[in-house]
């Protein structure tokens, strides 16, 4: 990956939660059109890395650039308007808004957004009027992803999309994320190593707030010791 190609680039990013130094110099590059995974055990800084892109954690040092421009000093909504969307781990569906309202809000009121969301997840059609707090976990996750996609971002950051979902729904979401290839640039955080190796082109493995490995699926496969040490599974 050369500098010119990187859509998202983090250079030596440091961030703190109070006294705890949670990101200790994270550097990574996401090429336009790529699907990139961020792996590691719980608490190593994957979610914080995603949040740092939107300035949701105070970045003390380092540089974050999107499409060649620094995001420093911009507010979260301005960063989102540059073309980055995020599907947070806890989905954060607005409970007092209906499914349709959640979608329309994300699309800035664009009237064809509902049809677009139904194309991604046909199941949404059946509960468009239901309030956000009356959805199952899987329905919430589909809505959360649809909400990010109808904003038509250039880059979407997705945090633990399969966590706690029934297998049949997880499969549906896996399929949709695979369908994003070529349409959007994606950064995926998840625990399912096997799936990530199938779906992503490039992987970053994190430990203690640092990137300890990055490379292709093949490179990762050839490194079982690393997988066992940092991901806690036998390759």
């Amino acid at each position: 990956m050369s500098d010119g190609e990187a859509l998202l680039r983090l250079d030596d990013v440091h961030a703190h939660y109070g006294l705890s130094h949670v990101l200790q110099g994270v550097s990574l590059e996401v090429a336009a059109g790529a699907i990139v995974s961020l792996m590691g055990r719980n608490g190593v800084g994957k979610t914080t890395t995603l949040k740092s892109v939107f300035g949701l954690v105070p970045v003390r040092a380092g540089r974050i650039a999107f499409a060649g421009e620094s995001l420093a000093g911009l507010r979260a909504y301005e960063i989102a308007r540059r073309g980055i969307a995020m599907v947070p781990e806890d989905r954060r569906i607005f409970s007092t808004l209906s499914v349709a309202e959640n979608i329309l809000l994300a699309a800035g009121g664009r009237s064809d957004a509902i049809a677009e969301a139904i194309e991604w997840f046909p199941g949404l059609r059946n509960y468009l009027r239901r309030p956000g707090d009356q959805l199952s976990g899987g329905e919430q996750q589909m809505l959360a992803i649809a909400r990010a996609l109808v904003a038509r971002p250039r880059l979407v950051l997705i945090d633990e999309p399969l966590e706690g979902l029934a297998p049949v729904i997880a499969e549906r979401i896996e399929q949709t994320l695979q369908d994003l290839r070529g349409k959007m640039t994606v950064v995926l955080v998840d625990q399912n190593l096997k799936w990530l190796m199938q779906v992503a082109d490039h992987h970053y493995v994190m430990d203690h707030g640092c990137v300890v490995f990055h490379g292709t699926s093949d490179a990762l496969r050839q490194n079982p010791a690393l997988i066992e040490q940092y991901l806690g599974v036998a390759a």
Partner: protein
Amino acid sequence: MTWISLANQLILGLSTAAIYVLVSLGLTMIFGMMNVLNFTHGVLYALGAYFSYLLVKLTGSFWLALLIAPLLVALIGMLVEHISIRPLADRPHLIQFLATFALALVIEQVIRLVAGNDAYAVSLPVAFAQTLSLGSLVIPSYRLFLIVAALMVCLAIGTLLAKTQVGALIRATSEDPEMAALLRVNTRAVSTTVFAGGSALAALAGALAAPVFSVHPSMGEEIITMAFLVVTAGGLGSLRGTVLAAIILSQASSLGLLAVGKYSDVLTICIMAAVFLVWPTGIFGRTEGR
């Protein structure tokens, strides 16, 4: 006849409730959005009444005053938000409360400096200056107008919040501002708009109250106590709770006058205390704190 005095007190109580509702709706919307109890809300109500007095004097039109006074106060509300709430957004609620309390005192003193300590009277608009007679029941028509006006404002706000894209933006930003920002919503602009709208509602209430209560510098202090009682009894952030609590509070005082005469304020406080004993977070209050 007892039923006539009863009907009279009911209507008087409802028209007072109309003013309480308009003031409290703005206060509770601002709380729902920013999670701050805004003490300047009372002086913004007073400013609405003063501007209305001034505009009626200048233009001779009560209706023009009713339109322009809220707009002027909306602008002042934006300024209040900018200097007293925005810089303290990350501070504890008590600090924000104290900052708005201090600013309310400053604004009240400015009112006293400019307009003096005297009370002013605004005359009733000609269209509602007469009384309506239903048999031996005589109702001032302006009181009925107040009730209808408050009902219409409530319906308009309810529809705006429930049925429009702007309403969805407001609900989303109230519920989870960070997620709304991730979905490209300029949450600060939404907050400022709600603050301006809430301020305009306070001013509308002040302008509507001006012909029935006199316009005086401490009117803000008097109304803010009632408004805080109404929004907490109704359940902070709940619009229907606000309407219900305003009616209970004003009827307790109005009907109480018939039942216990000059002790009606004591009765009112007892009823409100009972409300809090049964519903500690207000009638439609959230059970868990935010």
